């Protein structure tokens, strides 16, 4: 048997390109519907679990899906802005805990999540190393974000401009990393958490610069109008908040008008939840969404699409399978003389059959094995794929 398998192996190795193409085709035929099913199951589980852990989300009127995905998964599609006043209004009702969220900026590919310390308690996030953010400008990283950025406590990160041509827009802020969170296998692992005010500084709503009342800043004074000092373009703005310059940081305008992408609302019971939802039903500028409902709707769409995709994959698969078997049949025909030679020399029936069918058996076996391996990898790393797709 070993000798016959050796001959089979030599045949496959000699026709390696044809073998590889056939193996690839069989792998895809098996993997596409199975892998898709695994991905959909995993995404359903994952989307549902995080949605169920997030009772309500308040945001500006617009797409509920965009609002939910940005709030739960920090997706790059930023919903219409609401204001900090929305968080204050919820807090003032005493019906729920209100956690402000501002998810707009990024450090390379990692989302910057501007929020408050309450978010960490709400999600049950614990520090793996370092400490919690304590002052303006500090950042705490999710485990994967720390790994991706290659930083830890004591290192610094810089917020990324929103586009290459964003000269006058978002201000790159250098932030010290003070802590890294434990791995949670959720979107929080990818996030760079900062205080919501730090996110506003990145937006340019708050800033720090030279004290123009000091003599060394005289060159930056454009004019003085009573107690008001007007600076010129040479006034140096700080791009990092340090203990030395933190006092110079200030915000212009009313904080309640400052932007948020959402407010996560955590009511203590069903009654409070119902009351809150009732209040927002008639609101003109805001909406309250239940992430569970949004995700159910989204999953319904995904499942419908999945059915079409699987039907398409199966159809293409059957056509490919038919083509593969045509190739096998032609191959067997082409090997007729070889079969006759083996027979004439005295090859046993089993040996000749093994050598002749080795191509079909090996291609099918390796194709199915590879498909199983891909399915296993999809199962193992599917959540990462899903999160990267949601981003």
């Amino acid at each position: 048997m070993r000798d016959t398998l050796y001959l089979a192996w030599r045949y496959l190795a000699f026709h390696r390109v044809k073998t590889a193409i056939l193996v690839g085709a069989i792998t895809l035929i098996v993997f596409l519907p199975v892998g898709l099913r695994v991905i959909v199951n995993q995404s359903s589980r994952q989307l549902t679990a995080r949605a169920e852990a997030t009772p309500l989300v308040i945001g500006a009127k617009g797409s509920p899906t965009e609002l939910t995905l940005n709030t739960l998964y920090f997706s790059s599609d930023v919903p219409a802005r609401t204001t900090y006043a929305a968080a204050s209004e919820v807090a003032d009702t005493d019906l729920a805990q209100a956690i402000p969220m501002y998810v707009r900026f990024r450090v390379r590919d990692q989302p910057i999540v501007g929020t408050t310390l309450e978010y960490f308690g709400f999600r049950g996030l614990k520090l793996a190393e370092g400490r919690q953010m304590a002052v303006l400008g500090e950042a705490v990283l999710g485990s994967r974000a720390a790994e991706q950025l290659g930083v830890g406590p004591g290192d610094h990160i810089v917020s990324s401009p929103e586009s290459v041509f964003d000269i006058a827009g978002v201000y790159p802020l250098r932030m010290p990393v003070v802590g890294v969170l434990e791995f949670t296998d959720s979107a929080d692992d990818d996030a760079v958490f900062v205080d919501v005010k730090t996110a506003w500084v990145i937006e340019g709503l708050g800033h720090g610069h030279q004290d123009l009342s000091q003599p060394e800043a005289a060159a930056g004074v454009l004019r003085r109008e009573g107690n008001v000092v007007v600076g010129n373009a040479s006034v140096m703005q700080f791009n990092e908040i340090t203990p030395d310059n933190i006092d110079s940081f200030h915000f212009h305008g009313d904080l309640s008008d400052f932007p948020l992408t959402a407010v996560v609302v955590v009511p203590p019971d069903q009654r409070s939840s119902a009351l809150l939802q009732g209040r927002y039903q008639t609101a003109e500028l805001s909406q309250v969404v239940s992430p569970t409902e949004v995700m159910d709707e989204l999953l319904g769409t995904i499942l419908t699409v999945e059915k079409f995709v699987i039907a398409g994959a199966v159809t293409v698969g059957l056509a490919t399978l038919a083509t593969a078997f045509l190739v096998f049949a032609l191959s067997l025909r082409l090997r007729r003389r070889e079969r006759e030679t083996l027979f004439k020399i005295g090859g046993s029936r089993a040996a000749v059959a093994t050598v002749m069918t080795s191509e079909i058996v090996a291609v099918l076996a390796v194709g199915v094995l590879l498909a199983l391996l891909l399915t296993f990898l999809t199962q193992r790393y599917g959540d990462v794929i899903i999160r990267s797709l949601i981003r």
Partner: protein
Amino acid sequence: MIRIEGLRFRYGEGDFQLRIPELIVEPGTTTAFIGPSGSGKTTLLNLIAGIIRPETGRVETRNVEVSALSDPERRRFRVTTLGLVFQEFELLEYLSVLDNILLPYRIHAALDLDATVRERAGALAERVGISDKLDRPPRRLSQGERQRVAVCRAVLTDPPLLLTDEPTGNLDPLNRERVLDILFDYVRESGTTLVSVTHDHEILPRFGRVVDFRNFHSFGERAAS
């Protein structure tokens, strides 16, 4: 060595019919089958080898009635008792020269491929002048080299009977002589019986006996010698 009695054979519904009342090939002799195309030379070779079976009559080789053996027994008989050389060489394109030579040992459990066999394969290759090409695929050999590989494959099991079907039909005169030298040297040294089908009358003087199929193919009753 080979005894044929009352043999009759025909292919399906065709007109062709081979009838041989009696033919005996003595052990250790060299015999050439000649005759026009379609006269049944290759058919007789296939009958002697047990590749096909006669309608009636006996085909006995080395005291074994080949025509009475079952298919597995005939396969075993061929791989252990016969060496076959074909006009088109019939080497497997996906095997190296060495693997082609070793082929009989890989396709039947009756033969055991061990170090001795490998050594013998190497020695045969050395003898026919292809030892430096053992790793090559057949497509990178000349016609003459390919037939030398086929001869090595046929004699590797040290068979008592060598059947060759136009072994020099595709070779130029130089290679023809070289392959024949190899075959006849081997036959002389080992005492192997050689039966060869050929159209090439120039090589007939090398054979101890010539059987002309014109004398007895379809309706003949007499074996010529």
